[in-house]
């Protein structure tokens, strides 16, 4: 199957599923066409030039009315790289159910957000964004349907969206595969302990702690097309947590996914052999976003080699090795070289991979398009 690049602003037909994944180096966003002009958005990142959430920008370019046509908006976890611009999406999509991890449904998380974002002493993008989400949720009263007022809570094996054949040309279902019950119990204990600061400790930015067991992995069904969105869910030695819990669940969808958004940028921490063997079709289309931060940018060459044992079709929204830093005044560059040991730019172009598949009768050959620096690995 060859990847090509057509007109990025050409909308899909009513009977064509689309999975568009965006990644600028840090951050990712997924936009999915569920058929018949119904859309869902997973996570958010900003176009660095326009400062507009890429999902809204893309949908507008396609001529989609985000206010009415986006039916579901899922935030997989609260980390900065998955949430930037989420409040703007929520404010624009009046017809969308907002869903986030059930592990965040606790007073301690609300206190954490309130504590870090309302004191105005320092910028905390992920936390600030969540605070704006709270504001939007409060302000939505009065102009959206009552059933959309309260957030939906993602937990393992919960159906988040369901259109029967009568509503659509084909069944549309969206399931959350995680977090598991055990992950939620653990998270509720950890949020209070790790995120709420102790008295007489210095104020500082809220930095996301790893590992991530409460991220929301999703299973999307559009007719015969099954898609696994791995989010940033990682492994854990305890098989009640992370990917092992998903694989071992008796209640998850039993089909195999033709398309997989590889979890956590392809890192070894999120690699679960059983997931690839039991939940994904032979030679699936593997989609990745890079993560240019960290000791080693992801995916590493080893990560790519490991994924390629499962499929030859691997596509990444950007350079897995990050981007070269910009050139500055020669005296500045000279000083930076003397001071730093390693250095790289963490935001690159907004790479975009688009997969479209006709869904009217069975599954046709998918059309894969790469835009703005996205590449086949």
């Amino acid at each position, binding site marked *: 199957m060859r990847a090509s690049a057509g007109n990025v602003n050409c909308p899909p037909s009513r009977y064509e599923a689309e999975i568009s994944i965006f990644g600028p180096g840090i951050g990712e966003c997924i936009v999915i066409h569920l058929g018949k002009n119904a859309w869902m958005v997973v996570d958010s990142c900003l176009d660095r030039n326009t400062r507009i959430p890429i999902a809204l920008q893309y949908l507008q370019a396609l001529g989609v009315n985000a206010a009415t046509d986006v039916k579901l908006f899922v935030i997989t976890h609260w980390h900065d790289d998955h949430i930037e611009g989420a409040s703007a999406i929520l404010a624009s999509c009046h017809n969308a159910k907002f869903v986030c991890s059930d592990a965040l449904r*606790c007073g301690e998380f*609300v*206190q954490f957000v309130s504590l870090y974002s309302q004191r105005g002493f*320092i910028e905390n993008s992920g936390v600030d964004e969540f605070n704006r989400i709270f504001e939007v949720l409060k302000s939505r009263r009065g102009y959206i349907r009552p059933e959309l007022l309260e*957030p939906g809570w993602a937990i393992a094996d919960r159906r988040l969206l369901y259109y029967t054949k009568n509503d659509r040309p084909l069944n549309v279902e969206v399931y959350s595969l995680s977090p598991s019950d055990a992950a939620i119990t653990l998270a509720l204990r950890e949020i209070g302990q790790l995120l709420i600061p102790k008295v*007489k400790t*210095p104020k*500082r930015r809220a930095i996301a702690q790893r590992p991530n067991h409460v991220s929301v992995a999703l299973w999307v069904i559009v007719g015969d097309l099954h898609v696994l969105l791995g989010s940033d869910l990682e492994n854990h030695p305890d098989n009640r947590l992370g990917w092992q819990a998903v694989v071992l669940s008796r209640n998850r969808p039993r089909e195999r996914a033709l398309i997989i958004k590889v979890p956590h940028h392809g890192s070894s921490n999120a690699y679960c052999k059983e997931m690839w063997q039991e939940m994904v079709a032979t030679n699936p289309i593997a989609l990745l976003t890079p993560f240019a931060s960290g000791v080693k940018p992801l995916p590493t060459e080893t990560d790519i080699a490991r994924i390629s044992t499962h499929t030859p079709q691997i596509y990444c929204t950007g350079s897995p090795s990050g981007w070269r830093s910009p050139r500055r005044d020669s005296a500045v560059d000279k000083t930076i070289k003397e*001071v730093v040991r390693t250095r790289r*730019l963490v935001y690159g172009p907004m790479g975009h991979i688009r997969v479209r598949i006709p869904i009217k009768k069975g599954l046709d050959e998918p059309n894969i398009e790469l835009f703005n620096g996205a590449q086949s690995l």
Partner: protein
Amino acid sequence: MMRDLATRFVAEQSKEVSEYFVDKDVKPIKEENVGQVSGNVLAISTEAPASLGLTAPPVVILPGPFKPRHRFKVLQQFEGTVLEISGDECRAHIRDLTRPGFVEEITFSIEEISESDRELAVLGAVFYWDIGYQDRIDGQRLRVSAIRFRRIPMWKEKDLVSSRREAESLSESLGWKR
């Protein structure tokens, strides 16, 4: 006469200042601003205080001796956030404040941080990194890198109590609770 003298003196001083400090940000002192200048010139008064009804010649306080200082010309500024401290190394994100839009990840030795700031270098700590030229009083120019950590107050009990209260009310209004 005395006013002229004082004016000329200030003009000479400001000429000296503007010649010494080539930094474009230093503005020469204008003659019409005599009496308002600050810095090395202490104070100048050419009028006797009328309120005292004195007829004596005006008191002139001559400017103090010229005290040259080091000047720092900033070429580049970053705002950084510590992501990890591992051994003698600090990993951080730096945001370009001079040309906004660029975010880089760097690693550097802890040795680059002054000893007084080193204890502030913890996960999530914010620092500023200035790169520039220091023009010394002896005429030498040095290329300088200065990393300063932001000193932020500690968390107080009242912060936690009030945030807990806010959270309770917010959770209630949003339905964000179990």
